[in-house]
């Protein structure tokens, strides 16, 4: 029961990108982290999809999984009808030119040793687009579009710019190849509010000017509302609610969305912050997420059914979808599972395991590391290496024992069997080097694995 439904998806012919049943899991020493569990989403051409949720909800992992960084554990990512998870590396690199990514930290995502015009021109050079002159013209155009003076900014290096200007450079770099879809992962959360407004306005302008489609990932609900045409709220690797921003923010249907909205401090002193309706407790561990509805351990409206049956996404209004049995808008979900007769004991106390900083850190590290999934196979690799080493050793020993003399005295005293002697000489050094190397590498692998 990984899926939370696809009722909110639109006609596949009508969308630029469609994610189906996307699942991302990371293997850690503590267990399998269920970062994203069977979510489905789509974006229309020219639309901005806002993906919002708190840290650990899987929104950034989703963004990276779309880029196949790393590839999702399962599920399909259809971009212009092509499943990105199924195509080979070369093809994928080609697709990635139409699919760009903007990172949260603008300063560290730019190479500090290169000039701005080279940073922006780099994708063009890599893909050998146009002549040098055409490239320069293109760089000048996008730098101008993002509000930087190409004549002044082009020859500077990133450290000479503020955070906001660096984010402009990142945007220019992502636009230079004329992408179809740009995924922005928290592009304004490292910036001051006044600069944040500049970048949000800029993204709106760029969308209009270059006809791009945006997936905008952020934790700030107000920012997401401002820029999005459609918003998806995520919690612990699942989608809670999808809808048009004005509708979703005015009448949230999912108790989690409602709680989120209530938590936001309003810059208005006449609104007295009330502590009622705030979420209590902490995010459960993504290693051992609650069964049924993942939000039920913190949900004020949770009932027995929420633990037994995972809610499926369904429409509660026009273009407003929710994954909740007892939504705040619309009707209670029709029962799809036979409810057991008689009282059922359901754990209602919050899951005792809460996510700790280390687990989060681990998760983050895994996200950045494509080889992360292979942690378990290192041991078998080591065993294989040692096995190969032992085989090499046995072969050497047999050949040399057949030589009849002591193995390690390299004498040529019995020239009557020249061939055997030759075999001995040939296997001697390479054989031993292979033995030592293979066993050594294997042992190192074993020792290194968790030290």
């Amino acid at each position, binding site marked *: 029961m990984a899926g939370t439904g696809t009722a909110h998806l639109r006609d596949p012919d009508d969308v630029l990108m469609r994610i189906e049943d996307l699942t991302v899991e990371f293997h850690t*020493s*503590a267990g399998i982290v269920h970062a994203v569990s069977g979510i489905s989403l789509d974006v229309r051409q020219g639309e901005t999809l806002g993906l919002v949720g708190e840290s650990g909800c899987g929104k950034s992992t989703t963004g990276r999984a779309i880029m196949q960084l790393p590839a999702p554990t399962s599920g399909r990512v259809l971009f212009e009808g092509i499943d990105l998870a199924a195509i080979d590396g070369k093809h994928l690199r080609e697709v990635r030119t139409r699919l760009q990514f903007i990172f949260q930290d603008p300063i560290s995502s730019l190479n500090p040793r290169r000039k701005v015009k080279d940073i922006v021109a780099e994708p063009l050079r890599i893909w050998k687009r146009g002549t040098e002159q055409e490239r320069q013209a293109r760089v000048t155009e996008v730098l101008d579009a993002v509000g930087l003076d190409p004549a002044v900014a082009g020859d500077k290096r990133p450290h000479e710019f503020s955070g906001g200007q660096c984010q402009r450079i990142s945007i220019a770099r992502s636009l230079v190849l004329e992408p179809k879809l740009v995924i922005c992962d928290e592009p304004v959360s490292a910036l001051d509010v006044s600069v944040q407004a500049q970048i949000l306005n800029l993204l709106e302008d760029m969308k209009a000017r270059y006809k791009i489609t945006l997936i905008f990932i952020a934790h700030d609900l107000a920012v997401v509302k401002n820029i999005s045409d459609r918003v998806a709220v995520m919690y612990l690797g699942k989608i809670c609610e999808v809808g048009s921003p004005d509708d979703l923010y005015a009448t949230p249907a999912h108790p989690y969305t409602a709680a989120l909205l209530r938590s936001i401090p309003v810059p208005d002193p006449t609104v007295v912050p009330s502590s009622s309706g705030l979420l209590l407790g902490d995010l459960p561990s993504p290693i051992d997420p609650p069964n049924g509805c993942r939000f039920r351990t913190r949900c004020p409206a949770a009932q027995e059914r929420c633990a037994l049956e995972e809610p499926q996404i369904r429409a509660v209004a026009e273009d407003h979808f929710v994954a909740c049995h007892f939504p705040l808008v619309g009707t209670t979900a029709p029962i799809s599972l036979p409810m057991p007769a008689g009282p059922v004991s359901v754990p209602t106390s919050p899951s005792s395991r809460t996510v700790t900083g*280390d687990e989060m850190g681990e998760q983050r590290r895994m996200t950045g590391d494509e080889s992360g999934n292979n942690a378990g196979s290192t041991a078998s690799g080591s065993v294989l290496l040692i096995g190969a080493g032992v085989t090499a050793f046995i072969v050497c*020993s047999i050949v*040399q*024992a057949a030589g009849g003399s*002591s*193995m*390690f*005295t*390299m004498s040529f005293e019995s020239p009557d069997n020249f061939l055997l002697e030759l075999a001995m000489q040939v296997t001697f050094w390479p054989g*031993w080097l292979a033995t*030592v190397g293979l*066993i*050594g590498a294997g*042992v190192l692998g*074993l*020792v290194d694995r*968790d*030290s």
Partner: protein
Amino acid sequence: MGILKGAVTRLLKLLAVVLVVSFLTFSLTKLLPGDPVVVLLGPQYSNVELREAVQEDLGLNRPFLVQYGQYLGNAVQGDLGRSYTSSFKTTTLLKQKLPATIELMLLAQLFSFVLAVPLAMLSAFRSNSRTDKAITTASFGLIALPGYAFAVFLVYFFALRFNFFPAIGFRPLSDGIGPNLRSIALPLAVLVAGLTAVYTRLLRSDLISTLQEDFILMARSKGLPTWHILLRHAFRPSSFSLITVFGIQFGTLIGGAVILEQFFVLPGIGSLAIESILKRDYLVVQGVVLVIAISFVLVNFLIDILYSILDPRVRRTGA
């Protein structure tokens, strides 16, 4: 529980490492050019019968794996074979040479650690002050100065000029603590000087970066006294690279003090290794390497345990 389980698996892994090391030394000494039989027989080597008899006697004509198995079996029982050249048991030779090495190593580590910690703290807490600059300059000087050069200097002043300490030789502890300590004072001073300099540099730079941390500011804002902040808050998180290098130095000191041992004519493991290599006395070489490997592995095992005590974040292995 977690710590214990981690320790056991780690110990098993280290046992594997010792086995591999012993196997590698065993095969590598066999690979070295030259035949111990030549050494034993000398000019009589051309006598084929005698040669084969000796080979038979030493078990050298058996298959390699059998030889290694026998060696390992004997080693587990505490028998590392008999020296080809001196008719002494390898273990006897090791027993003779180990005390000087171990005493020198332990004392050097102890003194340099005790000296380095306060020096580094002073240096880091008052970084860029005159004290810090003096300590830094002295450390760099001692790191740059080769041990044997320093040794020449010490011998010249303290042994030849003023005759405070003997220039060469070793008196075991059984001769009394005073004479024993006097006999190793100069080599100890050379070792301590170098090690202290390295440890001070290492701890100083880690302390300086720790002192920039928010939790130090937090501790200060609690109104705690400076010594408390340095010892309780800053030292532990800064000690990890110091501890690592400290562990590695044990291994290096056991076998690596060859030049010093030669210079001061100390009966140590290093000189034993050199002598036996020159004499093609492979069994002794193997014994020395095995002892170094085991102690190295053991010390690093202890360091690993110390790590998990010092840093709760690494205790999570297998949790």
